[in-house]
């Protein structure tokens, strides 16, 4: 089983998001970076599949040279091979990103065994475009399921489940295929020490795919107005319980 997992380097924002003075980016001077959460689970899922069925997990990212850090994170979790698609400093939209992934899948197929399964996150934590996986599937002519929380691979088939509005939707289709997953599909492992050492030494394939502009053009970013106020303190400890009950009553939530 040849699996490619597409991951994205995103800022680790904690207390609040700050926009740069020119309004064009998130200020990351004070933040670290990590793999977007859904994709961290995609890496874990791919590693688990190859542990059961054998095969190779390739991890791909499109980003700056520093995104090699996130590739090494994935390698330390058990991925076997890493490819860095250099972004060349351009702002890559979802269609161009998908085109670069499609081209990488074709390049890999031309060199030897192509990918059987492409895993992505349902949406990137930062841009939240909700479409790269679907566009990749169309580019390759492969079936695609999104938002998956449970994945079974058997023989040449995929059984993928997700929950939607209180019901479970099950999709069954053949490989090769594209699946986007959500956090909750598994609990990602922590990297082992040997894993870290292996990742540190691993070679990363690297090249720059062609960029193209697209039809959704960002003008600026802003933090939405938030009603920021101090909470009214009802009291301390169990002494506050009567006041809390009066409040619940006022809010109309007591039956």
């Amino acid at each position: 089983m040849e699996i490619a997992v597409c991951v994205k380097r995103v800022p680790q924002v904690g207390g609040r998001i700050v926009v740069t003075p020119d309004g064009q980016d998130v200020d990351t001077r004070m933040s670290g970076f990590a793999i977007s959460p859904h994709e961290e689970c995609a890496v874990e899922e791919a590693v688990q599949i190859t542990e059961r069925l054998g095969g190779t997990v390739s991890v791909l990212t499109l980003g700056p040279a520093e995104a090699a850090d996130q590739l090494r994170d994935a390698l330390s979790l058990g991925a076997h091979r890493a490819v860095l698609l250099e972004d060349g400093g351009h702002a890559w939209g979802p269609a161009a990103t998908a085109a670069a992934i499609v081209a990488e899948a074709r390049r890999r197929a031309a060199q030897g065994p192509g990918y059987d399964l492409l895993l992505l996150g349902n949406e990137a934590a930062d841009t939240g475009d909700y479409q790269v996986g679907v566009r990749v599937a169309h580019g390759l002519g492969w079936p695609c399921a999104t938002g998956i929380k449970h994945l079974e691979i058997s023989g040449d088939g995929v059984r993928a489940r997700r929950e939607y509005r209180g019901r479970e939707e099950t999709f069954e289709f053949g490989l090769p295929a594209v699946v986007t997953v959500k956090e909750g599909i598994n609990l990602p492992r922590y990297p082992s020490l040997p894993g870290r050492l292996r990742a540190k030494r691993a070679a990363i394939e690297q090249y720059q795919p062609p960029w193209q502009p697209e039809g959704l053009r960002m003008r600026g970013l802003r933090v939405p107005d938030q009603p920021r106020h101090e909470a009214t303190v009802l009291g301390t400890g169990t002494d506050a319980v009567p006041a809390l009950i009066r409040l619940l009553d006022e809010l109309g939530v007591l039956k």
Partner: protein
Amino acid sequence: MNVLCLVELDDAGVTDASLRALTFARSLVTGTPGEPGAVTPDGASPVLAGVAFGPADRIPARLLGSYGVTEVYVVEPATLDGYAPQAWARTLEGLLSVTMAGAVVAAGTDCGSEVLAHLGALTGQPMAANCIAAAPAADGTLEVSRQRWAGLLIEDAILEGTPALLTVATDAVAPQPAVAVPGAEAAEPPVHVHEPDLDPADLRVQAALSASRDGGVSLASARVVVGGGRGVGGPDGFAPLEELASLLGGVVGVSRVVTSQGWRPHTQQVGQTGTKITPELYLACGISGAIQHMAGCASAKHIVVVNTDPSAPILSRADYAVIGDLAEVIPALVAALKERA
């Protein structure tokens, strides 16, 4: 501008998210939110076409009419049974020429996002996800504002392309019927049974649906959510929260640390990578309030916090707070509520 809007149906009729999407779509048609359809320069009334998948006799046409829908296209189960994202997108693509639509709108749900992503791929057009506002610019493009970081950040952008493809953030636009012409009932739009021209590949991925789960309250729609975070201390600490939630007719929701520690299942997570909640009351216990968590509960009507730390970030977003240990306060609250009953 003529607009096509995907209408998702559930057992109760039209989903809340789709009513929000229709409200948004209507503002594109009329240019002004809430106003009844204006007349285009060539004298024709603009079209807001609703597209639904299900039995034609279950379409709540009058309700759709009250939201400004002028035409309904329905694909019946005999033609296409169940959810097949690419086939739904192909259906919308086919209706573009029928309705002369300049924009296609869907709710920013799992279904709506996925179908519009397919439509973007089929038409080669860009798609703007989770929009909160859109207005036509003089040059024929759309000026859109959309959520990034699950709503923690807003992107202002120009959307080029015909048709313009947009999903609507499920927590940003309130569902609002069109202002009725005084004395007149909202017109009931005609319902056209539509047979889309599908490609066999459109049906490769099709959902088999489980039965609806036994009438439990869902996290996304609960009136009361009792939240538990790191301060709960471990998997054994949730029993009093569960008991409180059940006394208040609500459910338990948790922060990301709780699910990543494996204390509770991920289905209970509130936040950017979990569920967005919209309760009347969110009672957040032992939760510090990371912004990814606040992205999931920002639409709660009232936030009440129980926390030992009076400087926890969540207090600056809450309405009321009890400074104290949830392991003491919650059991005392449960006991007092039981005594009261």
